[in-house]
């Protein structure tokens, strides 16, 4: 689960997009490394648990012991095929593994096994919505193409002490999917929105935990700028961005940096940079200065990877079988929410972007057939406001979903006012485990709807506020609101304000005569 501070209701302010008033156009392409959720590594039987003690999830193969050989983990292939299909990619019936050579202490074999020549899948695409409320008035939909998805091994980790370096190989050989996107994006907001959508898809298909704090999802961004109508500019690559907020921030910073350089007639270098999340700047990565030749070579110890599909029956996994288990994906849910339940586009986006909120919405609707729009509004506005006020996370909230539909139902029957609904919510959030109806009963919050009773109350209010009444009768129409407020106050917000509005109007018009 990514940090909630980056969700759509974030208060963080982004400056306006550079595109609108600049001659520069920016182009952004992403490469995403997604760790596959599996019990063991890509080519060995070693465990893959994140928090294991240092160097405990290491098989002989993972430390490149001479004579050991890779054996492909079938469940990783299944996960990658499922991902590829969910992202509308063509799964290739035959793909190959290659060795990519470079020396690094946490890369014990001196090469990484990846899929360079013929990846597992290619030519995918998906739609996603871009909506940063502080930047965009309303959401807009765009599309990104996926060049390829390949399987590859992760490297280990180097730990640098002041006078020595140590190596932890727990991560070495962990299964990764590398998703290479076409440079179809124009700024950091789009890139961040793409990653959010991707996370939403992964949450559905469960092939990647997306735990960014564990490095389960790492993003590289290629950024360049050019003048409209001119060829693309020199690009820089920002490596290993570890949060959605970082993606937006790093790309925005990088675009601005490149514009500054070009505006002062400088040259943008083709280099690899890193995002410093604390200082909010990108900095050149020193050790990657030299252009590496990875000397790719086919991995001779692994036969071609065959995936069965359609008439092709030969394969270690079957794409057609996997296709059948793809759950409903975010875009499909948004469409359903709009088309079948009548939600607005924004509502559908916000709900789908927050799987927990969506789950409450769906369960609530299932428990009681209430107006979906009213329910969605209540969850998006009232629940989120109350959660923010109390600094609570929705994941940690244990209100049964059916209570929300109950509140909506009580609202509809005019048993409570909207104001009271919020009070009930706060009660529930502060730990009251009674049903909304019981809370209302217990607290005597039930709305007063009886016209006679309300008329009496209104009469009393008018009587008790002679000065205000005089003002009103002499033409100060604004005082009407004061009467409404007084009614609300004397009834502890229990009066049905719609009815009181009418009653007061009638009473006052009588007096005007």
């Amino acid at each position, binding site marked *: 689960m990514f940090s909630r501070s980056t969700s759509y209701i974030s208060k963080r302010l982004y400056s306006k997009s550079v595109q609108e008033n600049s001659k520069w156009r920016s182009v952004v392409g992403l490469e995403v490394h997604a760790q596959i959720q599996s019990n063991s590594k890509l080519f060995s039987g070693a465990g893959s648990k994140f928090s294991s003690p240092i160097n405990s999830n290491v098989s002989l193969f993972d430390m490149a012991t*001479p*004579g*050991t050989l890779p054996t492909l983990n079938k469940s990783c292939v299944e996960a990658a095929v499922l991902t590829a299909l969910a992202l509308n990619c063509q799964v290739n019936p035959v793909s190959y593994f290659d060795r990519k050579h470079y020396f690094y*202490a946490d890369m014990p074999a001196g090469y990484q096994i990846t899929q360079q020549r013929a990846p597992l899948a290619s030519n995918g695409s998906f739609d996603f919505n871009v909506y940063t409320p502080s930047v965009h008035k309303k959401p807009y939909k765009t599309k990104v193409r996926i060049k390829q998805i390949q399987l590859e091994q992760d490297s280990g980790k180097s730990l640098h002490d002041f006078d020595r370096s140590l190596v932890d190989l727990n991560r070495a050989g962990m299964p990764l999917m590398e998703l290479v996107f076409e440079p179809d994006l124009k700024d950091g907001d789009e890139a961040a929105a793409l990653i959010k959508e991707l996370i939403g898809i992964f949450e559905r298909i469960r092939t990647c935990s997306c735990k960014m704090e564990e490095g389960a999802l790492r993003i590289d961004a290629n950024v360049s700028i050019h003048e409209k109508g001119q060829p693309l500019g020199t690009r820089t690559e920002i490596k290993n961005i570890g949060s959605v907020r970082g993606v937006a921030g790093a790309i925005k910073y990088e675009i601005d940096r490149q514009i500054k350089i070009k505006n002062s007639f400088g040259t943008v270098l083709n280099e690899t940079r890193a995002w410093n999340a604390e200082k909010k700047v990108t900095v050149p990565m020193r050790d990657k200065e030299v252009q590496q030749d990875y000397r790719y070579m086919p991995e001779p*110890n*692994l036969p071609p990877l065959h995936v069965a599909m359609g008439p092709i029956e030969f394969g270690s996994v079957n794409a057609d079988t996997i296709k059948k288990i793809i759950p409903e994906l975010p875009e499909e849910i948004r469409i359903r929410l709009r088309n079948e339940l009548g939600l607005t586009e924004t509502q559908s986006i916000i709900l789908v972007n927050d799987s927990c909120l969506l789950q409450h919405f769906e369960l609530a609707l299932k428990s009681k057939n209430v107006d979906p729009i009213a329910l969605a509004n209540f969850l998006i506005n009232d629940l989120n406001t109350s959660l923010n006020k109390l600094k609570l996370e929705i994941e940690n909230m244990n209100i049964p979903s059916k209570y929300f539909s109950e509140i909506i139902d009580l609202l509809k029957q005019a048993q409570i006012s909207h104001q009271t609904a919020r009070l009930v919510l706060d009660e529930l959030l502060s730990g009251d485990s009674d049903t909304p109806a019981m809370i209302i009963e217990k607290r005597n919050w039930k709305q007063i709807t009886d016209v006679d009773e309300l008329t009496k109350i209104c009469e009393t209010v008018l009587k008790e506020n002679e000065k205000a009444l005089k003002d009103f009768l002499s033409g100060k129409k604004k005082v009407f609101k004061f009467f409404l407020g007084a009614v609300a106050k004397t009834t502890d917000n229990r009066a049905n304000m719609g009815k009181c509005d009418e009653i007061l109007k009638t009473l006052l018009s009588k007096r005007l005569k």
Partner: protein
Amino acid sequence: MEKVLNTNIKTTFKLLIENIVTVPEITAAAFNKAREFKKYNSFINLTEESANKQAEESQKRYDEKKPISELDGVPVAVKDNFCTKEVATTCASKMLQNFIPTYNATVVERLKNAGAVLIGKTNLDQFAMGSGTVDSIYGPSKNIWGYQGDDNFHIAGGSSGGSSIAVASGICFGALGSDTGGSTRNPASYCGVVGFKPTYGLVSRYGLIPLVNSMDVPGILTRTVDDCVSILNAIAGFDDKDSTSLERPFKKIRLPPADKMTIKDLKIGIPVEYYNEHLSDEVYFAWNEIANLLSNNGAIVKQISMPNTEHSIVCYSILNQCEVASNMARYDGIQYGYRAEENSSTEKLYATSRSQGFNEVVRNRILTGNYFLLTRNYEKYFNKALKVRRLIANDFHKAWEEVQILLTPTTLTTAPLYKDFVQKTNRDQCALQDYCTQPANMAGVPAISVPIKLSNNGLPISLQLIGRNLSEPMLLAVAKYIENLVQFPHFVNKSS
């Protein structure tokens, strides 16, 4: 007791079952002989302690009349590029001089499970890169044939020279070698033993420290074809630890007695391209002689053409060096192996460890291989070599449309003198030495070197049989048939 070691596996098995000899006795004899023949330098490391323990356990099984297999109690040697649990595995290199694996190669494990007694690890060219067993940090192995002293000896051939001599001299019945371009068959040919390279994928490579993964196979060295079959039966078959191992179940091979076999109408091909200017007259005559003999015994012998044979060596050289460059990348002195005294930077540590840990041959291959793999050269060299490899494999496919088996020389000459051999570079020697053996590795097909006769100066002359993929039963049967016809005068029989 040493006489038992000069017999064969089946005879020994019978003697053990009848309790005429015991496993500890045979094991002790093997070590006595190993010490007696120390000057030939066939072993890097003798594992006497663990062997004695294995021997006792094996004897217990015989005492209980429950031997595991005909290999139970049989002394075997293993080339020092197969990982052996808790036994140093050096690849005859400084780089792995201190490397003690924590696991057994699948072939070693299967031999152990069959009851065989591991007596030691045998000498080789560093990382199996060579064809003489001369480039070892433990010094060259020396051929028992024509040996006239430490400064005047013939090479054993290589790179499995240590295993070949261990078998030829009767220290053990069988030994494992590895075969990438002929490394099992070449020394077998020079030492007068049977050297067998199985179909690629039939025998697991797990635990074999790789030279060229796409061509390496564990090889078997024995004095007789029957002994070779006994060992093959123990080690062959699918291994889930090796993704290139063949899944098809291996059916144990049973060969009929030689006098019950016929080769009537067997179609034998003589590929004319295996004749080249370096082929010695004696080998050439032996080749002809056997072809005629087989023809006289009812086989249909015909000349065929395999036009891409001459390109095999240069193609092999490129593929070999590329895979070597890649496979050697792991030796950086970090996780295991030799680490130089160098702390100024990680890069310096790598560079110094590697330059000190590898010999010149290895370093040269790494440099050349990396050059071939550069992006700008990949198409020109590596990919082209892959295409040529396909052509060579196709030569074999076409040959099988005409014949069932090929008869060729194994080596172009008898074993050269050490002092002559080292005049040429490792590279040139490999090109020459591997000429007849290498194409089989390109195609993955099985091949066997069978000793035929002694040359005028008393050195073994051998011929090679090559069959199609998984034709082991037929290939080994024909080898046994020839073995019976020629009655090669084995070294162990000469000395007794």
